[in-house]
């Protein structure tokens, strides 16, 4: 095998490209309200977690986020629970999403932190714009740490940590997906 620096770089670019393609498709599904198709991108054993963020004194930042599996979290669930959220929207009478939100999911600053034969660890910054009814507008901005599992040439999301940069949630609900 050719192990020249160019080859290593090309491999990295290829991985990046595939992850970007995957996230772009994912955002397309969410913004296109293809929630059931979006669920297919999630591993059956996915962990989907968003902690609550707290203001802490300098040097006590380890307590800034509530703990998974222990404290209150905005989300701390698996696929079954996410499926219920989608089902609820698909009833057409989930009033918090009726009329359904207009969303635009954006991501940037992609890093592939770690890579093995089966999985990738990635990080992105996300910016989600939501608008509903006439004037309801929210921006959700933060960091997302994913564990992606390789499926053929593509991926499935095996774990997702979502860090929203707000302590008091500025939106009235979290009916959207991150």
């Amino acid at each position, binding site marked *: 095998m050719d192990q020249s620096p160019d080859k290593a770089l090309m491999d990295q670019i290829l991985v990046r490209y595939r992850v970007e393609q995957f996230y772009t498709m994912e955002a397309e599904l969410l913004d296109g309200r293809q929630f059931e198709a979006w669920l297919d991108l999630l591993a059956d054993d996915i962990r989907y977690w968003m902690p609550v963020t707290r*203001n802490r004194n300098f040097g*006590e930042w380890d307590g800034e986020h509530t703990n998974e599996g222990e404290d209150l979290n*905005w989300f701390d669930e698996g696929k079954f629970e996410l499926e*219920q959220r989608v089902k609820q929207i698909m*009833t057409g*009478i989930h009033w918090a999403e009726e009329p359904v939100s207009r969303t635009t999911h954006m991501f940037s600053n992609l890093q592939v932190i770690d890579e093995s034969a089966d999985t990738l660890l990635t990080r992105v910054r996300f910016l989600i714009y939501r608008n509903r009814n006439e004037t309801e507008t929210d921006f959700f901005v933060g960091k997302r740490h994913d564990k992606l599992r390789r499926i053929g040439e593509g991926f499935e999301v095996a774990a997702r940590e979502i860090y929203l940069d707000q302590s008091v949630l*500025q939106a*009235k*609900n*979290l009916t959207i997906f991150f």
Partner: protein
Amino acid sequence: MGGDAPHKYTGDLVNIERGRISREIFSARAVYDDELERIFPKSWLFIGHESQVPEPGDYILSRMAEESVIFNRDRRGKLHVMLNNCRHRGMRVCRADSGNARKFMCPFHAWTFSDEGALIGVPKLDTGYHNELDKSQWGLIEARVARYHGFVFACWDEETPDFETYLGDLRFYFDDYCELPDGTFGDWQAFGGIFKWKVPCNWKFGAENFAGDYYHNPSHASVDQVVLSPAGTKGRHTYDEVTRERELYKLNICVTPEGHTARGELFKDDYDYIPTYQDMAVVEDYFRECYTKRQERLGEKARWFGHGGTIFPNVSYSNGVQSMGTWHPSGPNETEIWRIFLAPKDAPVEVKNVLRHYVIRYQGPAGLTEQDDMENWGSAHLGAKGTIARRHDFHYGMGMGYEQKGWPVEWLGGEVHATEDVSEQNQRAYYARWAEMMDTPPDTRRHPVSVEAAE
């Protein structure tokens, strides 16, 4: 300032006799300003649970109406609730949501307060103040504190009766909430973190909804079609599965004149436990054992299964998911909701996990159930604002004249009325109390905090 505004509430904006309430009370700035003076400083307000500050020095920030307060345990173990506000120029002296501290130093000019609120440090006390500042008069403003089975409330007004008197005949229902699943007064443990979020509606929409609105089930038609309850069957309540096979009264309970409310189910017999968590042996065993113990302990009173209610003015308790939700006023058009959730401290971790997963999927901004409530409160609030709309009162007359006292059983309480299934009696009791306080100008009673100390 609306303190002297010529509003008349009882019989006018709040006409309980006719079952009508003006939309103004949700949207008018002058009404809101009156509430800040006449309701909140005179009421016992929910602060938090003792388990949120377990060790000496522990503190969290809480809120009383619009204002930040420090809820802490001092080095001797005593609980305090103090205005988070420097007596010099009003800086927040504590700016972290939680932590452990022996003193609070103001970032502006460094006045320093002890964990008991005493002013203990003033820079340039000699050269600047010429030692003429009486530090004993300039400590943090402290509220009265009441501990009730671990739940902590505070009040600014010295003349408000003690908390137990204030609770009145809600006591039976709030005790039921405070009891562990086995019917004993053991320790609850708050999960780490507080849900805090903003909803574009007046603070009373949440308070009156939780007071007892069995009529609003259509709000939740979507969640009733998916799986939320840990009983693993369709629907949102664990008890839906259990009560299907029971003969019961579904009751709205209001406590007069205090304006507190409860809702729940009264079983018609001493039924046995029904298997609920079939797939989770540890959880099933825990709740089965608790159920039996509770029956033995409480006798026929164990037939009462509370669902929740509202303690006047702005905290709602939810049984089962064991939460306390506080409706903090943030202007007439916005509420900042804070929610904590608790579990029996000594329950197996499996039980705690089931409760935790259930509550965070049920209530809060990510809660499948509460999301739809908030949507409707927001819309109702908009509906209370229009120039034309405001000329037309809301209808609060459901079940009027059908309230019964000492029914279906005598032991439900003294100054307590009950109606079955759907009724707005609880909202009427709540707003009757609200209107009575709103008609009492603040200057007819002692000022809520001792301003003389500032002279």
